[in-house]
């Protein structure tokens, strides 16, 4: 009995000694990171947040991205660096003030390591200063405005990355398609004052002029406007052969609808961009959607098909928008970067240096994603995009690919 007790006591003493020996060593990790570290306790999850448009008329955009991330989390076993992933977030409403509100709330949560978002460039413009100051890494699956990764621009903030294409590429591709494939020489553009639409139409106009075309008018509508008659009358007075309006719902649907009943525009080509690649356009524009061109990133390949199958079993529907694969890759890049910089202690505590994570993100090289082989620049562009042009047909979603012709599946 006494012997037994002494064995127990000795074991306890040994354990205690081991623990005390380990103790100071664990505390020895001092965070030397410029902007601090996130400490994750042995049983705590790693918190990845989203700031996407998951409600309102553009919700398909954000929900699709969120679904993509959820598939990616499942594929990664639900864990990063041995810790479970906590994934939640807020709606940004696809507007500057929505981004501001959601950004303020997220920035006040120090457990967040990275934010997947935003959906719209306008949200990024107001949310990014807050998220960047909070030390987070942000990676967007669908922001495309050139400003955001232009280091000389005031809308560029450290810690910002994106897997979506830069609109310098999309705008130029749209102009190339219009001038060389459709053979139109006169075009007009309409934007809605959002960062995304304004910069995209400007890139389109510049590229179109460089190719030798003429821009008859660059004009704008307001968000919430329903009656487009006066703006379309101004557009018609220049008799363009193509109208490029890379805007959002529901204004885009109103323009599609009303262009057909504007004198001089009944037969004009209409072209929109990825912001209007959505089943909602079909629902809202009705029969007048027939023949409308829409540009959007082109994602193909066996890995993508496997992803779509998983998406379908998880959510019971085909992908509802276009940036699900980009969101999948965004999460993958964040996961890889966290695992590269995370410092795991013996008791399971993980430290993630925030600046270190940003540097690791920027150092991402040849990451094999669904959207291609991705390499991030220091300024935040990670995409390796091919832009396709699709055409809407009444009653058939998704739109059919018509350009570049070599990617059309026979």
């Amino acid at each position: 009995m006494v012997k037994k007790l002494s064995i127990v006591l000795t074991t306890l003493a040994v354990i205690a000694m081991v623990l005390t020996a380990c103790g100071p060593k664990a505390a020895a990790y001092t965070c030397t990171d410029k902007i601090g570290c996130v400490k994750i306790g042995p049983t705590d999850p790693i918190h990845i947040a989203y700031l996407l448009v998951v409600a309102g008329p553009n919700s398909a955009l954000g929900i699709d991205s969120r679904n993509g991330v959820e598939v990616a989390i499942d594929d990664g076993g639900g864990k990063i660096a041995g810790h479970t992933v906590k994934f939640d977030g807020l709606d940004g409403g696809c507007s500057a003030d929505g981004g501001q509100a959601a950004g303020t709330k997220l920035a006040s949560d120090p457990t967040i390591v990275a934010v997947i978002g935003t959906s719209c460039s306008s949200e990024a413009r107001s949310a990014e200063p807050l998220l960047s100051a909070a030390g987070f890494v942000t990676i967007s699956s669908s922001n495309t405005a050139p400003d955001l990764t232009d280091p000389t621009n005031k809308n560029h903030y450290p810690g910002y990355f994106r897997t979506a294409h830069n609109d310098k590429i999309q705008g130029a591709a749209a102009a190339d398609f219009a001038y060389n494939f459709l053979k139109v020489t006169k075009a007009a553009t309409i934007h809605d004052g959002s960062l995304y639409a304004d910069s995209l139409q400007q890139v389109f106009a510049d590229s179109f002029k460089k190719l030798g075309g003429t821009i008859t008018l660059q004009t704008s509508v307001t968000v919430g406007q329903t009656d487009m008659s006066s703006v379309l009358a101004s557009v018609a007075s220049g008799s363009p052969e193509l109208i490029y309006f890379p805007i959002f719902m529901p204004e885009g649907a109103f323009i599609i609808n009303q262009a057909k009943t504007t004198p001089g525009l009944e037969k004009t080509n209409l072209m929109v961009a990825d912001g209007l690649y959505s089943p909602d356009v079909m629902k809202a524009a009705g029969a007048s959607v027939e023949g409308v061109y829409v540009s959007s990133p082109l994602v193909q390949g066996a890995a993508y098909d496997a992803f779509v199958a998983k998406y379908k079993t998880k959510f019971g529907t085909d992908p509802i928008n276009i940036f699900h694969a980009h969101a999948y890759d965004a999460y993958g890049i964040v996961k890889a970067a966290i695992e590269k910089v995370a410092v795991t202690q013996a008791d399971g505590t993980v430290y993630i240096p925030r600046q270190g994570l940003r540097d690791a993100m920027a150092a991402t090289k040849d990451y094999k994603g669904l959207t291609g082989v991705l390499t991030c620049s220091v300024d935040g562009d990670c995409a390796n995009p091919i832009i396709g042009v699709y055409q809407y047909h009444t009653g058939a979603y998704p739109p059919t690919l018509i350009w570049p012709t070599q990617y059309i599946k026979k």
Partner: protein
Amino acid sequence: MLRTWRQRITLTDIFIWLIGLSIATLVVWGTIATLRQGQYPGSVWLDLTIKGLALGGVYALIAMGYTMVYGILKMINFAHSEVFMAGPFTAVFVAIGLSKSGFLDRQPVIGLALILVVSAGVSTLIAILLERICYRPLRNAPRLVPLITAIGASFFLQYTFRGLYGSGSYGYPAIKALSKSWLVGGIHIYATQVVVIIGAILMMLILFGIVQWTKIGKAMRAVSEDKEAAELMGINVDRIIVFTFALGGASAGAAGVLYTLLFPVVTFYMGFFPGIKAFTAAVLGGIGNVPGAFLGAIILGLLESVGPNLFLTGLGVPSPSQLKDAIAFIVLVLILIFRPTGILGERISKDKA
């Protein structure tokens, strides 16, 4: 004579007149410059005018709700824009169903009538509930109280419908029978525009008839003149008020269907802008005055449609259409400054004034 005149005019008057004068000069100058530029052929103005008339007709029907309720209760029912939204946002499901089954194409008249009945019915119901729950308990409260309640009710209704049908948008199916168009004077006139204009005028006449020539209309006018006296004469004031709300709701629901013929997308926040424009129209024509609201709405519809291009293109404004709301609200401000009772004037009996 000159002296009394000089005494009456204050510095504020001069300042206000200067503002009015400068805006008027700007409008005239812009118009002349635009027309001299010759950027737009005459057919464009004709097209915009027709679109403006159709829009004005819809505003007129919504404005009825504001103006009649104001006439009787002396309150602005700011939740009326949600009454307008409720009808078409519900009827869209009927429309989609009818379109899918092919009924709408085979029997467009019956189909459209069905949609109209559902839309007007829902709007009427919402308007009656609004009166019963939000306004009746506050009938004797200070005037500010029901006004604030109206704003609260407006948000409540908006988000109730968001909860019911979701935050996305729904599209009204196109009606084949209405896709016809006629070539008149170099422009296409579309069947939808004709239906909207004729429909709006027809409904206005019915409303006007009810107010002017029926017994209950007479009672409405009596209540609006003097509530107490009307009650002493044996008029059931509560019933008249409910009837007024119902009539306003029905016309808003009908307006909703016409609106969706022009702009076939419905969302839960679709009521806000048309509502505020219709309110402007009601004030423009003289709030509380039924023909005034009609006149105000037509003027506003035309101004919004023709105005931006006509006034601003010549002044070199880059995207004039973005300023169309500004034009509408500048008109509201000018009216409030120069003729606070509106174009036709609020019908004020001595007692109320």
